[in-house]
């Protein structure tokens, strides 16, 4: 699956942002969004690989996909509540 197969409500390019910036951007977008929104964060921060899945699990949203790219990754999250 690639991110283009999903209908994204919003995409945030957080590349170049250091830990925990991409996670904070995701949290802000999830809070501002509606239930069912699919939000993508693109991050080059190594901490995001662990932090975003950990936060999504804790906050009980859904990690739809993690797609590795060249030096960065796409994290696709659905707001479930």
């Amino acid at each position: 699956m690639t991110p283009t197969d999903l209908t994204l409500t919003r995409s945030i390019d957080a590349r170049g942002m250091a830990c925990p910036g991409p996670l904070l951007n995701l949290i802000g977008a999830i809070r501002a969004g509606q239930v069912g929104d699919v939000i993508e964060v693109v991050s080059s921060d190594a901490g995001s690989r662990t932090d975003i899945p950990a936060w999504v699990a804790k906050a009980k949203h859904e990690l739809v996909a993690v797609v590795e790219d060249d030096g960065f990754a796409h994290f696709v999250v659905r707001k479930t509540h």
Partner: protein
Amino acid sequence: MEDATLSLVLFSGTDDRLGAAAILATGAAAMGRPVNVFLQYWALDAFRKDRVGTDHGVAAEAGSGGAALVKKDQAGDRHWSALLRQAKDIGEVRIHACALSMELFGITKDDLDPLVDDVEGVAAFMSDAQTGPITFI
């Protein structure tokens, strides 16, 4: 099980230590853990409203090259004060000024950055800290 409170005693007022503390506080807040911060001595001094944005130097172990690294990191949104504001925005973060240190410096709540919620004694801090460990930075 209720999430354990992260209690941080901030003693050192250098930008690298405050930066590390702000990262811990933000991570805990993001993960839904209450954060309880107690400011003593030089950390309290760094939270004075007229000093919060100034250069507070670095810890001794930073060495000669370390200061430039920290200065580059502690800018704009990356500054420890900005990170703490974000932590407060996403979670339950309370920042308390140590009453004894306030007295030592002869300052009042009005002298402190609005990040600081209140002035409290050590027993009140300990009371808030009882559900988790205390980390001294």
